[in-house]
């Protein structure tokens, strides 16, 4: 199936989602290029999380196209199918498997056959252990590998979840408010971590924290009432009159 329509990795065109008459997304169009890191900002209710829901298959759009890698129509796939294509998602609230060890959390996330039969007959392999080791190293949780994930601190859970996304080896990573509730030091480390990840993956970050977005130093898209209000560098966007208006109120 080679019907590539766009060079973008993620391509949204005219996407509309309504909940009981409320338009969470209103004719939203957005393109993310391969290898890019994009920050998405916007006031509460701008449609940031709904956009992620549409991309990951949690919400079906009423109208519009969502294409991944130019040829996969994401509106036709379910969450598992979309994850299999290589789209990873980090939730706003850190969501890990609390009763599993740190190591098992990563193991469950490792890119692998996800079908029932495959997990029933799965055997531990040295190659997988090496991959787990590498990821634990990246997210700085190696000393805690045997720990039950439920006992980690908030920031550690955020990293573990990011580690799980890395283990998935996605082409595109959607990260929802990664630094919410983090200390300044943790926030700085998270910026580094995301930049490191961006070396071989495309990343879309949704964030409220302007200082953090500034530190990321990437192209910014500002959403408002379900569509794009402004796009550009952080300086361009933050000096845009309409953006200022929306953020500060008129």
């Amino acid at each position, binding site marked *: 199936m080679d019907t590539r329509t766009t060079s973008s990795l993620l391509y949204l065109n005219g996407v509309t989602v309504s909940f009981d008459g409320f338009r969470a997304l209103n004719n939203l169009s957005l393109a993310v290029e391969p290898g890019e890191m994009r920050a998405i900002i916007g006031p509460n209710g701008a449609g940031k999380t709904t956009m992620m829901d549409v991309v*990951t298959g949690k919400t079906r759009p009423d109208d519009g196209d969502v294409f991944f890698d130019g040829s996969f129509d994401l509106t036709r796939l*379910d*969450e*598992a199918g979309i*994850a*299999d294509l290589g789209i*990873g*998602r980090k*939730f706003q609230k850190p*969501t*890990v*498997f*609390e*009763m*599993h060890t740190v190591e*098992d959390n990563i*193991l*469950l*996330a490792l890119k692998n056959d*996800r*079908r*029932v039969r495959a*997990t*029933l*007959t*799965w*055997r531990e392999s040295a190659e997988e252990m090496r991959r787990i080791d590498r990821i634990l190293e990246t997210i700085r949780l190696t000393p805690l590998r045997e*720990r*039950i994930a*439920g*006992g980690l601190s908030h920031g550690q859970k955020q990293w573990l979840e990011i580690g*799980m996304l890395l283990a*998935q080896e996605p082409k595109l990573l959607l990260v929802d408010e990664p630094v919410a509730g983090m200390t300044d030091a943790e926030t700085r480390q998270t910026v580094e971590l995301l930049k490191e990840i961006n070396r071989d993956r495309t990343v879309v970050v949704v964030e409220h924290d302007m200082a953090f977005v500034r530190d990321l130093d990437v192209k910014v898209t500002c959403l408002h009432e379900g569509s794009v209000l402004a796009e550009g560098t952080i300086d361009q966007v933050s000096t845009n009159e309409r953006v200022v208006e929306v953020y500060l109120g008129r």
Partner: protein
Amino acid sequence: MITGHLLRSLDRGAWIFLILVLGVAAAVPFLNLLLPPSSPYHVPIYLVSLFGKYVCYALLALSIDLIWGYCGILSLGHGAFFALGGYAMGMYLMRQIGTRGVYAHPILPDFMVFLNWPELPVYWYGFQHFPYALLMVVLVPGVLAFVFGWFAFRSRVTGVYLSIITQALTFALMLGFFRNNFGFGGNNGLTDFKDILGFNVQAPGTRNALFAISCIALALAFIICRMIITSKFGKVLVAIRDAENRARFLGYRVESYKLFVFTLSACMAGVAGALYVPQVGIINPSEFAPANSIEAVIWVAVGGRGTLTGAVLGAILVNYGKTTFTTGLLAPYWLFVLGGLFVAVTLLLPRGIVGTIQHWREERRARAAGDKPVPAEPAPRPAE
């Protein structure tokens, strides 16, 4: 490779459990058949069948623990699968009666003659063959669970909603089986069995054999459950229990996992029912009563969900309590005791007996290792 995994799946507790179950399987028949009735260690035959009943309940509890304890699916209708397995076995036993029935009809069971049925309904065909009946014992509950689960899990029905529709399922089946024209003996059910595979079901030898077979079935089911929960599949189940959305966005088709384990669990419940019927000598629609299914969930909660051995222990303890309390002076209060037990366990012992003991052990080990204390289980979500 299978043997390797089998051995790895059994920890010390599992071995102790298996040795105990198989030990009982050998000891009880020995004490019944070989010791003279005058001996203080002699086990009377009525107790053999009573214990056999407990073991069948334990198997039912194990099947519930597999889905509830490890995948968070609270079925309040598992008694339906148990009863269906029981009916399949009952149908075989009915066909074995032959001309020894009251009406001495060579083919039709008594209740059909009584209701003036001209011939055997098609769905009774084949049940005179034991292997076919055995197949149905597993297949009927399995297929029902598969179809039911396929719709429920695909539509993402979870939590209390799922519990309620499982309850409705068993209630609907109960109403159906109560009807005479359903062809399963109406409210009398199936009874007056004569023999199984040519052995008299009343004979001590047969009853002891049934008891031992029930124990072996319990041991096998336990091994299967252990192999499941120690595999990566089992880790995915627990992941689904604790963070279903995370599992979904990692690419696991949650519904397939639930469907597989739910169907397997229903098959186990069916086997439990099939072993139960020849030992108690009757199967009737009251086995579908929603209260039975709820009681089975209580056994698991008392013993400790998500522990397997706890489910077995809970089933045996609660039923032993039931036997004690429903005879004699305390008989009118049994339901209060049962209700009180559930409330008490939920409030005071949310991990159940075995769960609490395991938690103590882990805490002590963690303290010895200088770790932070083991975190409390994420707020128990009994409705899922």
